[in-house]
């Protein structure tokens, strides 16, 4: 048994306390919508997902958090700009008082160049006016009341802390340290580089899975739309290859959304440590059944044990 399998199994067996306080009491409603390609249909689909979850956005300050990682021409490293824009427009159309796109890339300091190369300038009108570089934002200290990681406090950007709703819009990707990177892992991008550096290596030394859990507990009200239209398989999150799954997955319970995405990817979520430790309760699936959209994402040998079955 690998170390990660042991951690996941023991977490489940011992019912370890969950680091986040957002575990739902009712079954978590998760939407799966088939979207074959990046077309204008994405805008309608995202609006429909918001309606399915009766998101109360009117008058709220909303932050849309994409996954912007690396200069890439294959469209599978960064969240596609059309999905980000669709979420941005849906939030505005539902009466949000303010909508910002915000990201703090983990490796590259040239955030605006990265955004331009990813197509964000071309897709989002006046992109710069709507964007906050979380790496350079002013920050406030937050204590972690029951840390899963070795951290007991962390600085977070004021843009995130002041938000009424943070919408995580990650790419559906495999990840060579934790198995899969989805809505929860996407919050590594809210950790300010100006304080912790590029990369935010402190998180690795404090425990990657555990920091994912801690950050999930610290970020205020959340929702997610996962870009799985074209994801990444193999040696993700940067060096992998494109994998078409043709789905958008949405919901307000992030561990359950990530769990659902894993099943779509052919990964057993109970074997992904941070999901095993945070996902609780039943899932109410709406939209397409997993069986209709499931497609195995290739796994590197170090993570072959995560495969379902």
């Amino acid at each position, binding site marked *: 048994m690998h170390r990660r399998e042991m951690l996941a199994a023991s977490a489940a067996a011992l019912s370890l306390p969950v680091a986040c306080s957002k575990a739902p009491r009712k079954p978590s409603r998760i939407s799966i919508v088939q979207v074959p390609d990046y077309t204008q249909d994405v805008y309608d689909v995202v609006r429909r997902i918001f309606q399915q979850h009766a998101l109360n956005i009117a008058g709220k300050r909303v932050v849309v958090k994409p996954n912007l990682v690396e200069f890439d021409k294959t469209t599978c490293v960064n969240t596609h700009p059309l999905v980000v824009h669709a979420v941005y427009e849906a939030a505005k159309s539902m009466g949000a008082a303010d909508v910002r796109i915000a990201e703090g890339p983990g490796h590259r300091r040239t955030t605006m160049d990265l955004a331009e190369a990813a197509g964000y300038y071309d897709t989002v009108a006046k992109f710069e006016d709507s964007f906050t570089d979380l790496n*350079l934002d002013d920050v406030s200290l937050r204590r972690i009341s029951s840390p899963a990681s070795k951290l007991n406090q962390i600085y977070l950007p004021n843009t995130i802390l002041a938000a009424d709703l943070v919408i995580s819009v990650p790419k559906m990707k495999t990840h060579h340290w934790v198995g899969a990177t989805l809505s929860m892992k996407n919050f590594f991008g809210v950790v300010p580089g*100006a*304080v912790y550096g590029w990369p935010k290596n402190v998180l690795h030394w404090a425990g990657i899975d555990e920091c994912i859990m801690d950050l999930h507990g610290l970020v205020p009200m959340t929702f997610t739309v996962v870009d799985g239209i074209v994801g990444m398989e193999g040696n993700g999150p940067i060096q992998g290859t494109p994998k078409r799954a043709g789905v958008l997955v949405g919901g307000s319970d992030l561990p359950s959304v990530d769990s659902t995405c894993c099943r779509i990817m052919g990964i057993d979520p109970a074997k992904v440590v941070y999901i095993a430790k945070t996902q609780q309760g039943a899932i109410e699936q709406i939209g397409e059944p997993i069986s209709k959209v499931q497609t195995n994402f290739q796994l590197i040998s170090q993570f072959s044990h995560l495969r379902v079955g």
Partner: protein
Amino acid sequence: MSIIEAAQNPDGGWPYEPGRGSWTEPTVFALLSGVGSGLSASSLKRGFEWLRASQNSDGGWSPQPKTGPSTWVTALAALLPADVLGEGNHRRSVKWLLEQTGQESNMAYRIRQWMLGNQNLSFGAEKGWSWYPGAAAWVMPTAISLVALRREQATRPSDVVRERIQSGTQYLLLHACKEGGWNHGATHALGYEAGAYPETTGVALLALRGVKAPEVDRGIAQAETFYQDPRAAGAAWLRLGLEAQGRHVHADSPPAHPRKFNILDEALYRLSENPDVLLA
């Protein structure tokens, strides 16, 4: 009044973006770009006063005053001339730098990794600097620290500084990318070779000024390739690095499309127009 001076906060420091709080990094780069020209005497005076007042008792600087422990930004402050920053302030910053290493050069850590079968482990003398205490060393903080220590060695030579320059130089040479140049510092992971970045290639070449090694030659070639793109991200660092290696490159104009004004980018661009501030 320059746009950098106009963005100076009432407390004397500079924010990353106008209207925000003062941070150490943009303050240092604003001062570096303004020493000698570009900033008025009163702006410089207020900037240095802010910097001196925000130095921690251990000799280092936090990214923002009262924002956690002293970090890599101490190396930035140590780039400033001692006679302007203050001899005592500068001396304490160098002392702090000399006490720092990445966690991976800790012998207990190396032995543990060796026992776990880490194939990429080194027991060499290389020692870099981390972004944040308790983490591993990376290229950018190591390169900036090296530039600061080389300047220190040029004015106040000592064996301890010389030895640390050697071990830091070794770190950079060991962390060069196979194709040439440098990225953030992880050159290979799980079987793949990672590519270089323009910004870290530039800063590493600046730090390796005067070093003769194949890694430097390949880095220069990579930097020149990057610089062929007139809007290359990190162009200011590339220019500084190439100038440090004796390659005089044409000063590029800022990006053609409008960008949100960022003090750090603006100051770096100005510094790249006047590299002697760092190279003299």
